[in-house]
C-alpha cells in the first residue's frame, strides 16, 4: 500500500487545487490530486474570465492576491511558458455621486494596505478607455498593478509544473468517501481504490459543500450562476479590466477587458442571484450585457460575439473564502468558497496553505489564512465581490 500513501490528497484540480499541488510538491510533500473531470481546470476555472487584482477591501484577500500576482506576473520569465499575463490594471469608471463616495471610502482602506490605486479624473479615464461614455463621467479608481492572464493557460502551466515537481494527478477519478478515525483524517476512497494521506484538502470549487459532507463538516458554500462571453479578436484598443458597478435591469455589476489575444471577455452578475449548478446558457444574458456594455462603450457594438458560457461562483454568506484547518477533523483542510475569485486567489492561497501543511508558515502565511476561518459569523460583507 506504500504507493497509495501520500502526505496530501487534494480533491479537485481546478484554480485552487492545481497551484496548491504545485506549492506542496515544491515543499517536497508527496501529493496526489484527484479530479472527477478529464483534465485540469474543467470546473469553474475555465469559466473565469481572467481578471487578477489585489485591490480588495480586506487584508487576507489582499495579501493572498498580491502573492498570486507575483506568481502570475513573473511566470513567463521564471518558467518560460506564456500564460497571457497583461498588466493592464483595473478601472472602475464612476458616473454617480454615490458610487464616487463608496469608492473613495474604499480607496482609503486599500491605500492603507499599501496598494497602488488612486482616484483618476474623467480625462484619464477617457485616455485609458478610448470611446467610453462621456455623459456624467466623474472619473474612477484605477489600479495599474492589477491585470489579467489566461485561466486556461495558467492552470495548465501550474499543472505541468506540479507534475514536474513530483505531484501526481488522477483524472476521471471522483472521491466517494473521506476516511477518518478518531477525529483524524486517514485518506479517501474512489471507485478505483483507497488512498491514505495525512492531509485531505477539499478544493472542490462549486462541489465543495457536497464533498465536505463526506467529511461530516458543513461548509456554507452555495454556487450561483454567472454568464460570460468572448468576442472575436481586434487590434488592442484598451488595457484595463473595466468594472461597471452601476445596477442594471436584471444585473448588478459587469466587467470586461481585452485579453492577450485581443478578444473582449465579459461577465455579468445577475440580480437577483441565480442559485444552483446549472451551466447551460440562458436567453437573458446577451441582451442584458449587450445593452450595458454598449451604453458604456458604443464602439463594442460591431464586435462579434464568438462564444458564451455560464460558470458558478461558489459563494459564502459574506463573500470571503474558507481556507482553514477545522478543529473537528484533524488533517482535513478547507480551501473552498472562493466566491468567483479562485483564479486570482489560487496561487497565493496555495503557497500559504502549503506552508501550513509543511509546518513552516511565515507571518504572512498566517495573515492570509487569518481572515478565512470556518468559525466566523459570516455577517460581514465583502465590499467588492
Amino acid at each position, binding site marked *: 500500500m506504500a504507493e497509495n500513501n501520500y502526505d496530501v490528497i487534494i480533491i479537485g484540480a481546478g484554480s485552487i487545487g492545481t497551484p496548491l499541488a504545485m506549492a506542496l510538491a515544491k515543499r517536497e510533500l508527496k501529493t496526489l490530486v484527484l479530479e472527477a473531470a478529464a*483534465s485540469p481546470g*474543467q470546473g469553474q476555472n475555465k469559466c473565469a474570465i481572467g481578471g487578477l487584482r489585489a485591490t480588495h477591501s480586506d487584508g487576507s484577500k489582499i495579501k493572498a492576491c498580491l502573492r498570486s500576482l507575483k506568481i502570475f506576473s513573473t511566470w513567463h520569465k521564471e518558467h518560460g511558458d506564456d500564460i497571457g499575463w497583461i498588466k493592464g490594471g483595473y478601472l472602475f469608471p464612476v458616473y454617480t455621486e454615490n458610487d464616487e463616495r463608496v469608492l473613495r471610502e474604499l480607496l482609503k482602506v486599500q491605500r492603507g494596505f499599501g496598494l497602488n490605486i488612486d482616484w483618476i479624473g474623467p480625462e484619464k479615464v477617457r485616455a485609458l478607455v478610448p470611446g467610453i461614455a462621456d455623459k456624467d463621467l466623474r472619473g474612477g479608481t484605477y489600479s495599474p498593478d492589477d491585470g489579467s492572464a489566461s485561466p486556461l493557460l495558467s492552470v495548465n502551466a501550474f499543472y505541468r509544473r506540479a507534475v514536474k515537481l513530483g505531484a501526481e494527478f488522477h483524472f476521471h477519478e471522483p472521491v466517494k468517501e473521506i476516511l477518518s478515525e478518531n477525529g483524524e483524517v486517514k485518506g479517501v476512497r474512489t471507485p478505483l481504490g483507497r488512498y491514505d494521506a495525512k492531509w485531505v484538502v477539499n478544493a472542490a470549487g462549486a462541489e465543495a459543500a457536497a464533498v465536505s459532507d463526506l467529511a461530516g463538516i458543513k461548509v456554507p458554500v452555495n454556487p450561483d450562476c454567472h454568464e460570460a462571453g468572448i468576442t472575436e479578436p481586434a487590434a488592442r484598443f484598451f488595457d484595463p479590466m473595466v468594472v461597471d458597478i452601476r445596477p442594471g435591469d436584471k444585473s448588478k455589476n459587469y466587467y470586461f477587458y481585452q485579453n492577450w489575444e485581443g478578444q473582449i471577455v465579459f461577465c455579468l452578475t445577475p440580480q437577483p442571484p441565480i442559485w444552483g449548478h446549472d451551466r447551460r446558457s440562458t436567453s437573458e444574458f446577451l441582451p442584458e450585457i449587450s445593452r450595458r456594455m454598449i451604453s458604456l462603450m*458604443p464602439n463594442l457594438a460591431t464586435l462579434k460575439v464568438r462564444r458564451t458560457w455560464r460558470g458558478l461562483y461558489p459563494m459564502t454568506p459574506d463573500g470571503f473564502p474558507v481556507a482553514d484547518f477545522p478543529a473537528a477533523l484533524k488533517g482535513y483542510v478547507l480551501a473552498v468558497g472562493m466566491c468567483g475569485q479562485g483564479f486570482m486567489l489560487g496561487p497565493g492561497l496555495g503557497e500559504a496553505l502549503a506552508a501550513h501543511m509543511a509546518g513552516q508558515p511565515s507571518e504572512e502565511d498566517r495573515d492570509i489564512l487569518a481572515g478565512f476561518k470556518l468559525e466566523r459569523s459570516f455577517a460581514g460583507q465583502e465590499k467588492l465581490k
Partner: protein
Amino acid sequence: MERITEHPVLQPEERKTVKFTFDGKTCEALEGEMISSALYANGIKIFSRHKKDDAPQGIFCANGQCAQCSVIADGLTVKSCVTAAREGMRVETLRGEARLPRVACVQEFGRVEELDFDALIIGAGPSGLAAAAELGQLGVKTLIIDDKDRFGGKLVLQTHKFFGSVEDCYAGTRGVDIAGKLEDQLKDYPSVQAWANATCLAVFSDKKVGVLRGDKYYLIRPKAVISATGAREKSLAFPGNTLPGVYGAGAFQTLVNRDLVRPAKRLFIVGGGNVGLIAAYHALQAGIAVVGLIEALPKCGGYKVHEDKIKRLGVPVYTRHTILRADGKESLESVTIAEVDEKFKPLPGTEKKFAADTLLIAVGLSSVDEFHAQAREAGMEAFVCGDAEEIAEASAAMFSGKITAHKVLKSLGVMAAPVPEFWFDRLQVLKSRPGVTKEPAKKDHDKQVYPVLHCRQEIPCNPCVTVCPKKSIKLSGESIMNTPRFTGDCIGCFKCLLICPGLAVTIVDYRKDPANPSVALPFEIGRGLVKKGDRVLLTGWEGAELGEAEVIDVKDFKAENTLIVIVKSTPEIADLAVSLKLFPAEAGVKTPAELAKSDDETVICRCERVSLGEIRRAIRAGTRDLNQLKAVTRAGMGACGAKTCSALLLNIFRSEGVDLKTVTGFTRRPLFVEAPLGVFSGVKCRTEADEKASWSGF
C-alpha cells in the same frame, strides 16, 4: 476566373451591376451578390492574411460557418460569403487583427421581440420544407427559418436530376427546380411563416431560441423544435490544405451553380462519394477542366451512374489514391497524389503531380446536430430530420421531413394516428446505400427500336418506370432498389432517356438503317459543343472507348434542359455506347521523394492555424481531453467553433494509437455562428453614414 454566361441547365439572370473597390481597385458585382463571389468573379482569391503567420486565406465553406473569407467592408470585419456587395462599398484585405471602427451609436436600444409558435423548423432545405408543408396542411402555426436568402438548402446548388421515386420525392426533376416547387408549396399554407436570412444562434436552456433575422434579433418560443439543419462537409489534413483555392465541394457548387461564377480553370477533386462525383460533373457543365478525382477506397462510394457519367466524358478517376500535398506560393498551383496500400499508406514511387488551381475536398458530411442537442438538453419537444439526423440523399431528406412533421403533429395533439409503418420502410429504401452492381444486361429481344438501360447498380430510383407510356420498363422486383429491365414495346419517345438522373438510358433505333443503327445519347454539358456532322469518340461501360462515330442529329429538349446527341453506329457497339468523350486524360508528372517530407506543418485548426506538429506534441505529452488540448494549443477556439477541426483532431488521436474511448470530446457552447454584440440589444445608429456602417448583412 470569370462569370458563366452559358450553361446547359442554368440561365444567367439579367441583373443590375454595382461598383465597389477592393484594396482600391474598382470591381463590379451583381446587385445583391455576396462579396466573396464578386471577388472571385473579379479574379481575386486572397481575402485576408492570418494574424499568426500572415498566411493568405480565401473562401473555404462559403456557407457562413467559418470565417476564412473575412474581409473589411466599409470598416467592418465581415464574412464575405454572407455579406452582399453594395454600390460604393470599400472592401479591403483583412490583415491580421481587425481594427475596431468608431461607431456613433445613440443610446437607444430595442426590446428583443419574443414570438410564440407551435413549431419552429430550423433550416429550409429539402427536409425542412417538406416538414413545413405537412404542418401547413393542418394549419399548425409554424415558423421556418433559413440562414440563406433563398430557400431550398443545398437543392438550389444541384443542377442534376434527382433519384428516388416520382411520387415520394420528385425523382427525375433537377434539384434546383425541386427547391422552387417546395417553396411555392408553402404559399398555400397561411399558418406557415417563412424567414429567409434568419440564422439560429442558439437554443437556450429557458426553452427560447435565439434567431438573428437580418440585423434584428428575436427570441422564439416554440412548442416543438425541428432541426432540419442539414450537414457540414468534413475536412482533410494534408500539407497545403489551407491554401486559397483549396475548399469544399459545397463552396464550389455555391460559386458555380448559385452565383454562376467560374472559380477555376483546372480542378482536382478529393473524394469519390456522390458529392465529389457530382461536383466534377457540375464543373464540366460550367466549362471547367477536371484534371482528376481521387478516392482512397478501392471503389467510389457514390452512385455508379454518377461515376460513369464523368468517366465517360473523360475525367480520370483514381481509386486507392490519396492526396499527399497541395503546393503554391500564394494560392494553389499543384496537387500531388499517390497510390495507397490496404492500410491507406502511400506507396513510394507512385507519386504524381498535377497542375491545378482549385482542389475540392469532398470527403463526406457530418450532421449539424448542435441545435437538436441543445433543445433536448433544454427539455423541449425536439425533433430532427434530413441530413441533421442521418446523412443520405435529398430524396430521403424530403421523406424524413414528412415523417418528422407527423411526429410533431402527434406531440402537439393535432393528430392522434401514429405515423404509418410503411413510411418508415420507404424512408429506409430512400436512405439505402448503393447495392450490388450487375454485369451489363444482354439483349434478349429483337425489337427495332428500344432503350438500353445502362443502370446496373442497385440504387433507390424509378422514374424511367413511371414515365414509360407503354409501361415497358419494369423493375426486377418490388423495391425501387431493383435495377430496371426493358420488356415490351418501345415507341422511341425518349421519355426514359430524358428523365434518367444517371444519364444511363440510350435509345437504339434500327428502323431507318438496319446496318447502321442510330443511338440516341443523353448530353447535358453544353449547347454548341457537339454539332451535326462532328466525329465523336463514343464511350461505354465505365468509360471504355468504343471508337469514333458521326453525329447525325442533335436535339435540344429545352423543357428538360437536356440535349440528345444521335450518332450513326454499328450493331456491334450500338448497345454499348452511352456517352461521348470530351476530354483527354492527363497522366500527371512523376515526382518521387515527396513522401519523406514532414507533415508537421499541416494546419489542423485553420481558424487559429494550429499545426499537426503542435497537436501531436500535446497528445504525446499525455493530453486526452479535447478541452485541454484547446486550452493549451487554441485548436478549436476560433471563429468556426471547432466545426472544422473536431473530426480531424480525433483522427490524430487515432493515428497516434490512442483509444478514442479514453478521449474526452469538446464541450460545445453557443453561439452557433458569431454575431455582433449590438444586435442583441437592437442598438440604433445615428447618421446615415453610420447606418451604412452598421451590421446589416452579417
